[in-house]
């Protein structure tokens, strides 16, 4: 049970139940879809880019607790950031969830996102945690292609 709580932290369960920034934006400048065929997770990311700044961001979709909470926390983390800052954050997040289980956890600059540290114990769930981030990266880089984790 303690292992499970490591993965399903209260913050994750909370964002799964009550996802933040959920629902379409009225006038997004970018709309990008993400898909994880392994578990059927689908999400649509709405983004308002103001120059190189992410002025607003939201998402819609269905997915497991990890993917939904990750999308919710991602939107909170990147809102107001520049594209470069958001991409740098994705890199740190990616390192966090793909690090070997015995490596020390580097939480620098991750804030709440550090709750996903438990994911590295579950390799099959890494794609769930990173789907929203891949979709965000694609949205800021090249618009409306469907992103797949496969």
């Amino acid at each position, binding site marked *: 049970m303690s292992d499970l*709580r490591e993965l399903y932290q209260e913050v994750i*369960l909370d964002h799964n139940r009550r996802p933040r920034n959920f629902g379409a934006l009225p006038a997004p400048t970018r709309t990008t879809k993400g898909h994880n065929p392994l*578990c059927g997770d689908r999400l649509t990311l709405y983004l308002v880019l103001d120059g190189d700044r992410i002025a607003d961001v939201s998402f819609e979709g*269905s*997915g497991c607790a990890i993917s939904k909470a990750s999308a919710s926390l991602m939107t909170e983390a990147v809102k107001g950031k520049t594209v470069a800052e958001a991409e740098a954050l994705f890199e740190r997040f990616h390192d966090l969830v793909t690090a070997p289980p015995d490596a020390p956890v580097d939480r620098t600059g991750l804030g709440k996102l550090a709750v996903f540290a438990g994911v590295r114990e*579950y390799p099959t769930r890494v794609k769930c945690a990173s789907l929203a981030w891949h979709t965000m990266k694609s949205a800021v880089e090249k618009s409306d292609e469907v992103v797949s984790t496969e």
Partner: protein
Amino acid sequence: MTKAADATPATTFDVERVREEFPILREQVHGRRLVYLDNANTTQKPTAVLEAIDRYYRRDNANIHRATHLLSERATRAYEGARAELQRFINAASTHEIVLTRGCTDAINLVANSWGRANLRPGDDVLVTWMEHHSNIVPWQLICEQTGATLRAVPITDGGELDLEAFDRMLTDRTRMVAIVHISNALGTVNPIESLVAKARAAGAVTLVDGAQAVPHVPVDVRAIGCDFYAFSSHKMYGPTGSGVLYGREALLDAMPPYQGGGDMIASVTFEKTEYNVLPYKFEAGTPNIAGVVGFGAAAQWLAGFDRQAVQAHEESLLEYAEERLAEVAGVRRLGMAARRSGVLSFVLDGVHPHDVGTILDTEGIAVRTGQHCAQPVMDRYGVPATVRASIGIYNTREDIDAFVQGLQKVREVFG
């Protein structure tokens, strides 16, 4: 093997004895006893199969059909012996009708490409159902695109049964091929295969039955079913991966062009013209998965050594018990409530995504499948993104089901 060697098959079924034949069931998973309920995905392998493969590589390994030395002769005998075993397993009339393939998917692709390309024209219909596995949809979709034929899917009812009225209506004189699953991998529905095949043949259509989920659970007699083609995989019936069978009526196979070209499928080759080999070799280009086929034959022999009725009764009573126990878990919505079901419990848990259920069960040592089960139309039909699927095999026990239900209670605890 020991079982098959017995003069009379055991009439009672002793699950503990069966479990002893599966070394992997002694594995610990996350420090727990392994509860393997992912049998519709792939089954575990008994020592009879493991030893047959090991013995083949240690003592007989050589290429088949093409050398004069003793090992090649032994390898050929082992390979052809497996074919004969598989012929008996499904009661085919002749070994010429047993084409060895890479698996069930490969077998269906063979028919779609070889038979389909030669026989399908614009205006023709290929009839499948909404409960097909992707491997009995996509090959037909591809060949319909290439030939101009039309793919039609017979709907299923809310309960997960084939809509028989729709089947009758959609079966017309344009229908050239009826490709139907025997037992659904996503819902466990057992289709009334004999009567569906009889109707299709009466309408002048050729029939293919996807038997991947049927062969491990029910005795299959292709001549009693009356189908033209029957496809199945080794790895879902306790044999190794990478091997399968396409059963086909000899007259149909004879008339079909080769699927792939290469060694072994030819009688003579010149740059002007190639003469093809006789059946079934015409469809077996290249060096096959010899060890896999040997293991496949051993699996068929092992399974045939049981009183199949007793195995079926054991599995059915477990499924019934699992259904009863599942009703104790709050917020379960089951998919697939057909009157005749086999092997599979598919469901969603209110407020919890199947993938999360799968992860939590895994930490308890319980292996189930979560996702779309390669049957996206079924998921769309019932408006769910995915399901949890527990599927039963010959070695499962009530203890397994109890652990599974306890695991689901843990999911409830975590998600509140």
